[in-house]
């Protein structure tokens, strides 16, 4: 799994004002599970919320979302590091596939699953809801590599 919901440390409770703020600031991120095509998933560009609360506890990265504390696995850390508001999920998955030796489709599944959790907790939002699949890896997706 990418995440563990942690409630072990009071220092990391979701920020009350963040919860209020986030509740009114959802940017209408598209659903990335349940019927979306891989091409659409690939073109989705996630961006980190500026106000997300982050802590590194003894080497474990923990994000405070609107409802949960998310403890990131090593794979999730790689994906989180790539979320910069510019890279599409397809590109992030390509990086993960290269780093881990996973198949592209498997990597995209993992990236999509993780980002869906982050979207649900308002830790990331949509930077660009682009549908134009143009980067090289997505081109590969069109040609059946997924």
């Amino acid at each position, binding site marked *: 799994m990418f995440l563990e919901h942690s409630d072990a*440390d*009071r*220092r*990391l409770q979701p*920020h009350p*004002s*963040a919860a209020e*703020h986030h509740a009114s*600031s959802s940017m209408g991120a598209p659903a990335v599970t349940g019927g979306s095509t891989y091409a659409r998933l690939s073109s989705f560009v996630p961006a*980190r*919320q*500026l*106000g*997300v*609360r*982050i*802590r*590194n*506890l*003894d*080497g474990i*990265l923990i994000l405070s979302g609107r409802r949960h504390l998310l403890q990131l696995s090593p794979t999730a850390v790689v994906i989180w590091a790539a979320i*910069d*508001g510019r890279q599409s999920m397809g590109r992030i998955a390509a990086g993960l596939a290269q780093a881990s030796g996973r198949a592209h489709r498997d990597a995209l599944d993992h990236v999509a699953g993780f980002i869906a959790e982050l979207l649900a907790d308002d830790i990331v939002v949509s930077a660009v809801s682009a549908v134009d699949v143009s980067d090289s890896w997505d081109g590969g997706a069109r040609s059946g590599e997924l």
Partner: protein
Amino acid sequence: MTVQDLKWLSDTFLGRLQPSDRDVLRSAASYAFLSGSVAYGWDSSTSDIDVHVVTDLSVDRRGRRLAEVIGQMIGREWDIDYRDRLSTDQLLESLSWERYRSGDAAALLTDDDLQFVARLWHGAPLTNAVMFDSVQQRLKASAARWVVTEWYLDHYDHSALDVQGQIEAGDNISAVMSAREAIRCVAAAALAGAGELPVDQKWRARQMREANPGPLPFTQYWRIETMADYTEEDPAQWARETIYRCQKVVESIVLPR
């Protein structure tokens, strides 16, 4: 500051006090220490001399007036802060590892406490050096640096959230101001995490250059602090990028459990 300088300051300070005040400061229950630029060795000809007196005996505030007289004599102003020893002990207790792990230590730290802790951390003894050294060692063995790190991280969180809201509201110049506050908090957290408790903001650049903390090296900090990449055309972009960089730094500050 050399040992001779400290002795001279100590003698000057004690020598000009009324005997009753001097007895207070020399008693086993009290100590005085220097802080600020003089203690760090960063003072200039215009720097004042910051002295803290910690005692559980009543202190005649004549010491404050005498300090002004001494200041006139040596061309420097003395700023003397008196603090109750019991409250100092309570403050140290609030910085224990147990309190740190309970998760509420940083939230209970006031601005005054934060400043005093940093001054004690970097201070140099003026009177009763044995007691001062003991207190300073107790502070350094406590979770103080991590409580202070968390204090600044918590304040960074508020600033980052402000940036988010201000950009969403289209108030981009306010977002820039909040982002500047955010990077300052992150720099302070990086310093504290490196065991260099941050002192006054006016010394932040110098402290960052000397400590050069791994999560935020001086060159990177200075580029943001001086807004080297800022453009009038897109203030929000500078604020956004600054927070992204802050997030990377925060991720690199490893807090002990």
